[in-house]
């Protein structure tokens, strides 16, 4: 019996428990004297839920714990068998044989590459099935014990509803806490791996070095090629400079045109069309940038007389990224222009200013904080964007301001460092986490400032 089957069995039995609990409570209601419900405190289905929760919750909790504990128990049982005495003492060789034998016993793998593991397969099969059935038996026992306890407590005056509602409130709180747990998990894992990284490579080299050419074996004190300045520059150049040169004018002007000039029919059709730009997956943009935009940009550069134009140039990635950001800038500008009080616009128009003068001299200055907040959010989106730069920009770290040259970014290097065949503790992997932490802190800061600016600005006009 697999875990999934057991899960469905427990849930199915839970439904049976629900039906039983409800039926019993319905009996109370039928036999009640005085009034339609008599002294029965809760509706019958609350009794049903009480039984189901009491039976299923401990069983599920046990299943989760058992899932994480039983592998170690299985390994212990195999190791205590006499045949396991022949295992090599070397930890790595030992672990390799054990994991292979386990994979074969579970059916993930068919042939063994090491002779020793073949001998352990029957042992593993035995241990696995022993602990599996033990787990199944314990789960079912817990289920029936919980169910029986709940069932005996059902009485006409039993406050089933308040008990069930307390469980629901607890569930709501737990669901909300998952957000905090996730944030803490991100922070903890990034900081922990970064800590391991800076114990190998000096943080000064990482933050201020200009040579990015990561070596897989590091020597303390020497230059190991982990200077991330070219990556920071590449990220800023593509995401905060080129992309914004495209996105700010186009996004802002689109917002102005659609809110101030366009007829309502045009607006009704054009807004969703612009929003499609935000819905296109980034991998599609990346493919488009690499296949169509980048060669065109290179040809253009060659026409201009730039001889060393690369096919994976920064400009193509930046332009396409800018287009992707247009809807974000546009909708943020839209919101902040709409938030400007009508009295200001009406006053300006009444003084004889044309529409464009009103927009340029009154609406935009008033909406500026909101627009700036939107731009900051857009920058944070752009520097965290991965697929466009991975596919269209290059892998070579290059400290240059030439948009036709190849350039790399933080996200590209995270992908490059993690998709090799390194084990988890190698400096390459850890460097990816250090880059990830830099990215996380930067975007966190940008988002925080952007949201503060937007909020302050809203309050100013309310």
């Amino acid at each position: 019996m697999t875990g999934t089957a057991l899960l469905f069995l427990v849930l199915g039995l839970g439904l049976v428990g629900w039906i039983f609990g409800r039926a019993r409570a319905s009996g109370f209601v039928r036999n009640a004297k005085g009034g339609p419900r008599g002294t029965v405190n809760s509706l019958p289905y609350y009794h049903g839920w009480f039984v189901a929760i009491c039976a299923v919750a401990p069983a599920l909790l046990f299943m989760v714990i058992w899932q994480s504990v039983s592998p170690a128990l299985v390994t212990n049982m195999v190791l205590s068998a006499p045949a396991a005495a022949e295992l090599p003492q070397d930890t790595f060789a030992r672990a390799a044989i054990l994991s292979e034998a386990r994979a074969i016993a579970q059916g993930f793998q068919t042939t063994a590459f090491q002779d020793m593991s073949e001998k352990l397969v029957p042992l593993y099969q035995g241990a696995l099935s022993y602990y599996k059935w033990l787990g199944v038996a314990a789960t079912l026992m817990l289920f029936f014990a919980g169910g029986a306890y709940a069932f005996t407590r059902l009485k006409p005056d039993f406050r089933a509803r308040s008990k069930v509602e307390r469980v629901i409130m607890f569930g709501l709180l737990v669901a909300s806490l998952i957000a905090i747990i996730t944030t803490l998990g991100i922070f903890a894992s990034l900081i922990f791996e970064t800590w391991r990284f800076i114990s190998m490579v000096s943080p000064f080299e990482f933050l201020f070095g200009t040579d990015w050419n990561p070596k897989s074996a590091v020597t303390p004190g020497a230059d190991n090629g982990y200077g991330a300045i070219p990556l920071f520059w590449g990220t800023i150049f593509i995401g905060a400079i080129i992309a914004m040169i495209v996105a700010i004018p186009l996004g802002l002007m689109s917002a102005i045109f659609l809110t101030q000039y366009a007829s309502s029919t045009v607006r009704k059709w054009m807004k969703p069309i612009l929003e499609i730009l935000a819905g296109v997956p980034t991998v599609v943009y990346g493919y488009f940038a690499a296949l169509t935009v980048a060669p065109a940009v290179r040809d253009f550069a060659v026409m201009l007389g730039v001889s060393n134009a690369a096919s994976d140039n920064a400009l193509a990635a930046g332009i396409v990224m800018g287009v992707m950001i247009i809807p974000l800038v546009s909708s943020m500008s839209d919101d902040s222009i709409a938030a400007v009080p009508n009295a200001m616009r009406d006053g300006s128009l009444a003084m004889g200013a044309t529409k464009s003068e009103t927009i340029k001299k009154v609406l935009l200055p008033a909406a500026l904080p909101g627009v700036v907040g939107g731009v900051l959010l857009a920058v944070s989106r752009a520097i965290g964007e991965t697929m466009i730069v991975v596919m269209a920009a290059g892998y070579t770290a290059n400290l240059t301001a030439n948009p036709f040259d190849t350039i790399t970014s933080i996200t590209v290097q995270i992908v490059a460092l993690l998709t090799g065949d390194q084990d988890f503790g190698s400096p390459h992997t850890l460097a990816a986490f250090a880059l990830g932490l830099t990215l996380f802190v930067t975007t966190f800061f940008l988002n925080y400032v952007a949201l503060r600016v937007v909020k302050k600005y809203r309050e100013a006009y309310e």
Partner: protein
Amino acid sequence: MNKAVVDLSPTDWNGHIMQKRIASRYAAERRFKALGFMAVALSTLFLAFLLFTMLGQGLRGFQRTEIAVEFDFPTLTAGATAASVTGPNADAALNSMDIPGIVELSVGQQYAGLGDSLLTSAAAANVRQMLINNPELVTSKQTLWLPADSRLDVAFKRQGEPAAEKTVATLSEKDALRTGFNWTFLTGADATDPSAVGIWAAFKGSLMTMAITLLLAFPVGVLAALYLEEYASKNRLTDMIEVSINNLAAVPSIIFGLLGLAVFLSIFGMPRSSALVGGLTLALMTMPVIVIAGRNAVKSVPPSIREAALGIGASPVQVVFHHVLPLALPGILTGTIIGMARALGETAPLLMIGMRAFIPAAPQGFTDAATALPVQIYLWSDEVNQGFVEKTSAAIIVLLIFLLGMNALAIYLRNRFETRW
């Protein structure tokens, strides 16, 4: 000392200077409006250009070039009967026929001198499938249309290598080429030969990943939204939850991939590149989107509903689950669909947890090594072989159809069920 002369006469609006000034201000107005129009037009043009490029290249990916090959089955199979390739022993009978050998022999006889790789690497498997579908074929001489090799496919559809073009010209003279619908592309899996690739495996991987994501992110997101909007008291914990959710919604997706790698793979030891881990990672990413959409939907339910329910004796939990939640559900569903569409198009976090492996068969379970549609697009885009270009674009078309469909559904739901109070 000259006193400044103050002109007290009214402005002459019809005068030459004023008319000129007004004309230039109106010209500026028109220029500004034209700039705005151009911005919208440029963005739309870019979108149209992108879609047309993908369509132009991708539609060819749904077609394949087929070559007519004549099989003299009675001779080649030493008189196999239709009955021998049906029933329980069909597999063994087909294996003993040496179909790859038969194909090679037949092609060699008919198209001698045209090189040895005319057909796709999956041709033998195709013949085998045809025989299973229609056992009668083995009893007579048959002409079967088999998919051509990728080089010929490219050369027949557009410009290819000179050698392949020459072969195509020779074959066309013999009337042995035609274009057919590429079923393999919809039913197959990844392969090294572009003429044999399909998206089903990646698509199934995406579906399984999305199932896990939906199963986790939807309930958690809805419950968290209800808690924050309806029950949470204003305190430090609530503030922390709100900051976390707003922040998580803006964290770059690749960071979630790093979290998945560090926590699910290396601490919990879950199977690498499985739909389970992919779904968990994307669920963490989608949950804040659902919470934010859910809160807005719950907020828009008017307080009178809650007060009425409380007034007739409902408990706070009953108020929310019997009255507020059903009324807010359309809004929550719209947000969920948009969040799921974003997760479906997401690539970077899945690369981090190793879903970029070569997957030659569709995953059977949630812990099998799998890949997802966007990742498959990324992998194919990296291939040097020219035949992959149209396959990549075709896969993009499939992905875009699903994403646009989901977004359209969300808009429809919003318009159909949104209540204005």
